[in-house]
């Protein structure tokens, strides 16, 4: 079962209409036997390397006092690299970040979410290797004293977002509320921040992104989830192309050093 968990990437989109389609496609566990041969070879060959890498990533994740539960990647570049984003997603899973959102302001990732999903599965195989369930259990025992944490990290949720998930979704929530006011189900006075927040939150378990890594030369959120980035820390990297694990870890360390006073 643990194998299935590792291989299962739930690629969700923020919006309902994509949801059904993607969930149907993605909740299917990826059968191990269907992996192309070259991947298997790479895995066998790389087995040892993957093992040490993986334990390093897990211990890196544990070494940080504070790890975001939800990380966003905003790509503000013209050319998109699916492989690099897939790497980032896999590294996030490995260090124990359970929610990853990927965004570009043209909505290209969202249009091609199938490509991205395939790429993630591929990179997961080549970076993490190991489709042996014993393997996971061993790691669990040796490298972490917080098994719960590890289990969570096994089921990461990847969301692919576009500008439509931003202001547009706020407008839709507003329209919905106004419709119920029209039907006299609610009164305008009843509308509160928390009410809107619940409407804009797909599920109770998804927190707002605590950290957004922005790639590219443009210093702007370019429409990324305006409602949800109230307390989000923004850290920039020059490009997502050829981004390394060390780059990501440096960002996580930077995030670790951020202190929030929450108005106090």
């Amino acid at each position, binding site marked *: 079962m643990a194998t299935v968990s590792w291989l299962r990437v739930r690629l969700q989109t923020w919006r309902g209409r994509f949801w059904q389609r993607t969930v149907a496609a993605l909740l299917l566990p990826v059968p191990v036997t269907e992996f192309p041969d070259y991947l298997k070879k790479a895995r066998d060959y790389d087995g040892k390397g993957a093992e040490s890498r993986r334990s390093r990533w897990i211990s890196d994740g544990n070494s940080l006092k504070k790890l975001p539960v939800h990380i966003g990647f905003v790509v503000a570049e013209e050319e998109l690299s699916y492989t690099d984003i897939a790497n980032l997603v896999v590294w996030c899973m490995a260090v124990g970040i359970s929610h990853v959102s990927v965004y570009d302001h043209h909505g290209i990732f969202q249009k091609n979410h199938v490509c991205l999903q395939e790429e993630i599965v591929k990179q997961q195989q080549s970076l993490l290797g190991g489709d042996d369930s014993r393997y996971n259990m061993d790691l669990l025992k040796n490298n972490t004293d917080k098994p719960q944490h590890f289990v969570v990290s096994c089921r990461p949720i990847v969301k692919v977002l576009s500008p*439509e998930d931003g202001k547009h979704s706020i407008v839709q929530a507003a*329209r919905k509320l106004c419709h119920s006011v029209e039907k006299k189900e609610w009164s305008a*006075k009843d509308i509160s921040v928390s009410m809107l927040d619940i409407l804009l939150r797909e599920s109770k378990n998804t927190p707002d992104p605590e950290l957004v890594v922005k790639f590219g030369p443009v210093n702007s959120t370019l429409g990324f989830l305006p409602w949800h980035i*109230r307390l989000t820390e923004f850290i920039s990297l020059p490009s997502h192309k050829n981004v390394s694990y060390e780059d990501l870890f440096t960002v996580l360390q930077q995030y670790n050093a951020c202190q929030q006073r929450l108005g106090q």
Partner: protein
Amino acid sequence: MLVCPLTLELLLTDSPAEQKGQPLTPQTSKTSSVPLKKCEPIDDERTVTPQRLKWELHCRKSSMNSSAEVVVIKVFPSSVVSNPKMSWIREGELNLLERISANILMAGPMPKHVAFIMDGNRRFAHKKNMERHDGHMQGFNKLAETLLWCKHLNIPEVTVYAFSIENFKRSKEEVDGLMELARQKFEKLLEEQENLEKHGVCVRVLGDLNMLPLDLQQVIAKAVIMTKNHNKCFLNVCFAYTSRYEITNAVREMASGVEQGLIKASDVSEALLSECLYSNNSPNPDLLIRTSGEVRLSDFLLWQTSHSCLVFQSVLWPEYSFWNLCEAVVQYQLNHKSIQKARELHLEEQALQQLEADCACVAEHLQHQGNGKPADAQRRQEALRHYTTAREARVQDFLQSLKRKRDSFFTDLCSETVLT
């Protein structure tokens, strides 16, 4: 190391312009026989604390000759807050180097609207061993200075985050201090009527004023009404503000428009929501600057800055300089083209969404009328045109009634003061 002077004299004075006079020392200290040293006054008697004095002495030590036996620090009683240093409007010119740099900068695209998160006042106070209140005071002085720089850089609109709804969670002492500071500053603003008129400064306050003490609400209302027709530069002060609250408030306004039958739920759109925000009179900020090294928006203008250039600078707000501002403007200029492109793309999408929404409404309408029979293209076109015009008229009516409601909130507050 701090060299303590032999005598420390506190000079309580009535006027900041006063250089000499009978020292009205509050507690101990004998009358000085040594000529008064020229020194910077402390703003307010209430701000005098042991730490503050230590700091003042430390600062002055270098500028005084070491043989000074008496150090005179002028302290103003709290009733006198007419220190010209604390005015909203500063007069003054840039120095030569600043002027040259400003001219070079202004050859490029300039932001029309800059938003500031003035962070770091308390850290500054801590660093300098001051009271928190003094840090806030220094922060205010820096704002006045920054407004002057913006004027010289031809930036007509500035929005600042003065007080968040979350800030009410701070200690009662600090919240009261900040409310008092705001009261003083807005009262001061009222005294500066002539100056504000001369520069054409319009001051707006964005936020839920109902959360503030009534007397502060009234002073704010007076200041807003006094400057509302000025149109050369605009200062928006976000007070008792968070962006989520602002967005929620806009939704609430639209819902009450629906309740009153002014608009339909289907009229709710991105453009309409923007018009219902507190910031509806301003264009979106081109540049958002946050000082003190924090890299988050802290619930400030989330909606309005979705296509703005964000610049995070590590300097503490009271230490902000003209050069820091220039650096941020350069950042804006480097980003200008791509952000402009993204904005245009977003506007196109917005227009498309509006069209889609209108079409959907018309289709539903036609289906009702035609008992499910499909309408021909020409009839659909006409119905769409008709529907769009009607929707726009509804929305305009609604927005006007919202504006009247908001205006009367301020005028009512003002007339209440007259009555009391």
